[in-house]
């Protein structure tokens, strides 16, 4: 009988990853939804009448919502896999998944899928809570398949990046460096709060080197059918990062980098 690619080790670890964040759902699901809601309240109130996006075809609050949803998805997906890994490394309970016959692929998929579930759950929560601001009709995406594709790819990228950061970090401080000096700036400078067409030429060019820009721009295309760059180009960039980061994370797991001596 052939061995399944993802066996019982994956099932157990994936379930454990989901149960881990579910047990502290106020902290892991509700808190990011509330934080994102605060962003929406403040930015939409202050900038609604001052900022024009897509040449006035979309009002600013509607424009802001997909960006905030995607930002919440990305940040929580990263937080889930990175914090789970670093906690189990610091508390040495990582041994419980290193001793059993779980393959590197199973560990990779369990952590990344767990991060995707939490990221998408938070994204769904943020999306639902924004209905009162723009009305249910305006909040519904025009091209839902694009929305799903970018939400899945974006959360997979950030879950994988969280896995890499969790393995690489030897203490919580290392993870904070990753979070505060890489994830946060790239997220905030990715076009969550603005269209890059409103930027000077230099910053527009620079934005094209930010992978987060493509995740958010492609996701927003699914809502409005309008984007700063072609959604196919965004999908190609995002797919490239999914594959490249997965290869790096798998290599780290297979060689036991910072996990097995």
């Amino acid at each position, binding site marked *: 009988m052939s061995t399944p690619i993802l*066996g*019982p*080790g994956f*099932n*157990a*670890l994936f*379930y*454990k990853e989901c*149960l*881990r964040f579910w*047990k*502290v759902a106020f902290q892991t699901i509700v808190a990011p939804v509330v934080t994102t809601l605060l962003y929406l309240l403040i930015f939409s109130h202050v900038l609604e009448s001052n900022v024009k996006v897509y040449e006035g075809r979309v009002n600013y609050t509607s424009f802001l919502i997909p960006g905030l949803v995607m930002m919440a998805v990305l940040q929580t997906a990263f937080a889930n896999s990175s914090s789970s890994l670093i906690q*189990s490394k610091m*508390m*040495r*309970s990582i*041994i*419980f*998944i*290193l*001793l*059993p*016959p*779980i*393959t590197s692929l199973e560990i990779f998929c369990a952590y990344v899928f767990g991060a995707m579930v939490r990221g998408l759950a938070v994204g769904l929560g943020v999306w639902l809570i924004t209905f009162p601001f723009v009305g249910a009709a305006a909040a519904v995406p025009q091209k839902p398949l694009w929305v799903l594709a970018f939400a899945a790819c974006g959360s997979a990228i950030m879950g994988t990046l969280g896995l890499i950061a969790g393995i690489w970090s030897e203490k919580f401080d290392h993870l904070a460096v990753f979070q505060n000096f890489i994830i946060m700036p790239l997220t905030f400078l990715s076009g969550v709060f603005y269209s890059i067409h409103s930027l000077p030429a230099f910053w527009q060019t620079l934005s094209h080197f930010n992978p987060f820009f493509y995740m958010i721009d492609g996701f927003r295309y699914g809502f409005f059918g309008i984007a700063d760059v072609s959604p196919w180009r965004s999908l190609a960039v995002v797919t490239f990062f999914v594959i490249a980061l997965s290869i790096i994370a798998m290599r780290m797991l297979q060689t*036991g980098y910072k996990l*097995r*001596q």
Partner: protein
Amino acid sequence: MNPVSAKAAAVNVDDICKSYPNVRALNHVSLRVEQGEFFALLGPNGAGKTTLISILAGLTRSDSGHASIMGYDTVSDYREARKNLGVVPQELVYDPFFSVRETLRFQARYYGVPKADAWIDEILHNLDLTGKANENMRALSGGMKRRVLVGQALVHKPPVIVLDEPTAGVDVELRQNLWTFIKRLNSEGHTIILTTHYLEEAEALCNRVAMLKNGEIVALDTTANLLRGMSGITVQVSADTMPVSWASRSSAQASGAFGFTLSGYAELESLLAAFREANIAIREMKLGEADLERAFLKLTSQSAAAS
């Protein structure tokens, strides 16, 4: 199942070397533990015991050499090797998100045992944890956490069980319960490999012993043979002074006491006669038989002298 498993050694370690920066943790270590043995791995701190166990468990990679569990190579056939091995780690580790029962269930599922509840109940009963089954791991005392670690190692019923200092921090009564349970597992065919600082435990439980020092095996024999090699008795005498003729045979002891290592009871008679002739009153006298602790100290000190 691998057809050679029935005849394979429970654990085979072949010429393993492992170095860390500035430390040679294991130096050409070879040993074989047969199926059904109760085997002790002894040595002072830093001897290489935990490194050896980590290599068997796949937590550490050796620089050279091979290791196998029930005939399965721990590197090339690691999944089968790990299915056949249960390890109780030395460190007191736990996942603070889960209860005792959830912890054991997850561990069983990692090994592909989806319905282990009956066995988990039995483990909880034998480890005196039934009343704590639904408690969060954070709420347990150190001794209880240690017992959960034992449970986690047993939950997939591995044929080979490695216990790295399993009774550290566990009180005397529960230690006895734990050993009764482990002895039962051994009598049912499980191979047990034990590292412990309580040498009397190793002496009472284990058929064979390997002693490690500075990453090398300094003794590998049956417990009985090691004890036979330590023939003789020790005598501790409390007196104001001692016969001059025995001064060179005396070892330093606590104030007012003199220690002697004798070849047997015939020599004890000579010692007592010397005290009588010198008219020295003996206030108290203690006799000691050969034990693993003496063998351990003798062998490890010989190794130190040789190196």
